[in-house]
């Protein structure tokens, strides 16, 4: 019986954001936007969903009078991401054996 893929992560933009954040300690919203080629609106919604799931921390502050949003993956997020990758590998492995 296969584990169900985490619906929070199994979506293109949210997975892209999590993959990016797993590779860094923290990243600015603008950097994530640039790398995912998403619109600010789309990205804000997905970042909010990841935050509500407890997968990322979002810190909003000001730098040189400009708003600065920084995102960071949480321990819960790391565990969820690892489980997701493991589940993916199981699916792909089973697919190859068939």
């Amino acid at each position, binding site marked *: 019986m296969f584990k169900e*893929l985490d619906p929070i992560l*199994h*979506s*293109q*933009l*949210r*997975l*892209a954001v999590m*993959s*990016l954040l*797993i*590779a*860094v*300690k*923290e*990243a*600015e919203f*603008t*950097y994530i936007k*640039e*790398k*995912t*080629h*998403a619109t600010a609106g*789309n990205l804000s*919604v*997905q970042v909010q969903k990841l935050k509500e799931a407890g997968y990322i921390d979002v810190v909003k502050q000001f*730098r040189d009078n400009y708003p600065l949003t920084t995102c960071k993956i949480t321990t819960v997020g790391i565990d969820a991401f690892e489980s*997701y*990758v493991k589940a*993916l*590998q199981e*699916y*792909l492995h089973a*697919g190859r054996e068939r």
Partner: protein
Amino acid sequence: MPEEKKLTEAESLALITSMINKVKNSYIESGFGPLLWGTLITFCSLVSYAKIKFNFDLGFDVWLLTILAIVPQAYFGWRSRKQKKFISHNEIAMNYVWSTFAITIFMVSFYNYKVAPANSIALFMLIYGVPTFITGGIQKFKPMLLGGIICWLCSITSYYTSLANGLLLMALSATTAWLIPGIILRRRYLKLKHV
């Protein structure tokens, strides 16, 4: 990128790999630190060598320049942190390695001042090799791996040479460990910055 597009398992894995690679490729080391310290330590070693060989006095200890160099290093470090849009795990590791190195060098300099052990120059080159070799390994940057090894070889060799020649070995260590890698990194940085 559409926000809710469902992916196949293969597409998911491909996306994860591509995003991780994007992060890897977006960090470019400016080479400022290795260039600054490579030039300075090479210069101080050569001046100290010349002082012994040609018996002259500058009126001040040339090694005090290393304290002054902390100012541009701190300024460029602060400026580059401000411009950075992300902090990588490698950077954190590198910061710890080089901070450990700075503290160790300070402690050894203090020990050297208080105890004045024989051939302390070997100890400095031994320590130079450690963060250089680690950085070369973590960043997969061969010139620094090689530089670290050369520092250790120079450290051993210095036991069998005079102090003056030891200073030449120190210049060689700083040149191979930091100055040459710094030039390579700087050229790469300027090239990629203008692409």
